[in-house]
């Protein structure tokens, strides 16, 4: 009972699951468009919340948000279930598969056997799509991979019932209805406005203000916690920024691609220009990641390197602030 499901690779797991699930419903949408319509670009700093022994930094909104927002804006109906009983969770999944409904799951990364060891952490917001079951093995489309994989029942139950922060509790979702024709004009405008408001939010935890806070804290880490801990925090930040599943620097490029697609759709030249500018900001994020990785590797001990990183990050915050102010006016 394998649906004629098409696996498409993506840069980010949640976008990928959306694209693959909707594609199966006959609704073709690109990953950047799904990401942009879900207002996926974000920044939040939670210094008091320790994740893997480092302050929490996320470049994306809460898991599930991207799909929910996008679905709402496009009038797509999505069913979501969580189960306290793993047996019921499996039952529902099997039921879906027997009806040829490819189904999205939120899972923990740590026990996914097909991931390299370097990616195995207790991170519980990874998205995969199950599209079939053969001889007791689930066929898995993990959109960050270029090929499909399979998991047996025990393996799948383990990752669906990963525990800890953001425990998925068997979380399962699938689109039930997609409108026949969709005009993207208003959804695009609304989504862009939300991203601008998020990034320019007048609170210190979110958006460019949060980026500035991290920039200041890099200096504080160095003074108060020492070089080893600072480097560890930096390494974690860059992992959050560039690793699959979370994105960050890479997100800027997806967003730039979205702005280009949106600009063409709306015939808005300003969006096309801004998409190239966003790509330049993405390059700057990558430069920051490269510089930070050098600092982490060399374990350099001068005050100066952290000052440089802090300044780079401040500059990024300034660039993004100017960018999102312009973007807000462009739609």
């Amino acid at each position, binding site marked *: 009972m394998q649906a004629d499901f098409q696996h498409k*690779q*993506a*840069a980010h797991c949640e976008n990928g699951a959306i694209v693959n699930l909707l594609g199966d419903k006959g609704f073709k949408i690109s*990953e*950047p468009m799904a990401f942009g319509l879900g207002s996926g670009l974000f920044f939040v700093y939670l210094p008091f919340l*320790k994740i*893997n*022994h480092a302050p929490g930094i996320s470049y994306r909104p809460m898991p599930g948000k991207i799909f929910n927002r996008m679905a709402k804006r496009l009038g797509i109906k999505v069913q979501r279930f969580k189960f306290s009983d793993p047996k019921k969770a499996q039952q529902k999944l099997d039921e879906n598969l027997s009806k040829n409904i490819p189904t999205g799951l939120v899972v923990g990364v*740590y026990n996914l056997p*097909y*991931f*390299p*060891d*370097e*990616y*195995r*952490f*207790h991170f519980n917001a990874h998205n995969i799509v199950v599209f079939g079951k053969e001889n007791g093995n689930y066929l898995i489309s993990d959109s*960050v*991979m*270029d090929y499909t994989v399979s998991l047996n029942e025990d393996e799948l139950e383990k990752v669906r019932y990963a*525990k*800890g*922060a953001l*425990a998925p509790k068997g979380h399962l979702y699938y689109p039930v209805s997609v409108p026949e024709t969709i005009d993207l004009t208003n959804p695009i405008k609304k989504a862009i406005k939300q991203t601008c408001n998020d990034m320019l939010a007048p609170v210190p935890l979110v958006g460019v203000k949060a980026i500035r806070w991290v920039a200041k804290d890099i200096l504080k880490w160095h003074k108060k916690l020492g070089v*080893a801990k600072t*480097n*560890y925090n*930096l*390494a*974690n930040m*860059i*992992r959050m920024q*560039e*690793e*699959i599943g979370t994105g960050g620097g*890479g997100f800027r*490029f*997806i967003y*730039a*691609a979205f702005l*280009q697609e949106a600009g063409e759709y709306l015939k808005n030249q300003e969006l096309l220009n801004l*998409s*190239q500018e966003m*790509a330049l900001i*993405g*390059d700057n994020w*990558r430069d920051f*990641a*490269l510089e*930070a*990785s050098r600092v*982490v*590797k060399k374990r350099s001990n001068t005050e100066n390197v952290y000052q440089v990183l802090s300044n780079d990050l401040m500059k990024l915050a300034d660039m993004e602030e100017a960018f999102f102010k312009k973007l807000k006016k462009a739609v």
Partner: protein
Amino acid sequence: MKKNEVPQDDSPLKRKNINEMVYAVDDDGKFVSVQSTGWEAKTVVQHENLEVLDQRIQQALNDVKAGNVSPIVYFMELNRMDWQTLAAYVGKWTFFVKRHGKPNVFKSLNTKTLQKYADVFGISLTDLQNFKG
């Protein structure tokens, strides 16, 4: 990032034959998706990360040997968990789990509780009880 600038470095993904996908600009200024085998900057921070975790495991091992902490701390680090994650897996308050990290409290734990920990760590009850570091 231009299409031809997409890094194709050695990486943990490459060793598993996984390519990741990134977006870049082609010669006409169009955004396209490109496959990448990995990026060195990322591999560096991942290794740094694992190195620190290895140090934590080694430290926990030494602490168990010295009788400062119970085996629970070692296996927690070995499974890359922190107190909150472990507490969620065994279904107990963090406060109690931390107490179980003390050698004296650990010795007084009943079999049922110990079995819970052993299951979470994927080891046998005796392996957990007799772990001396």
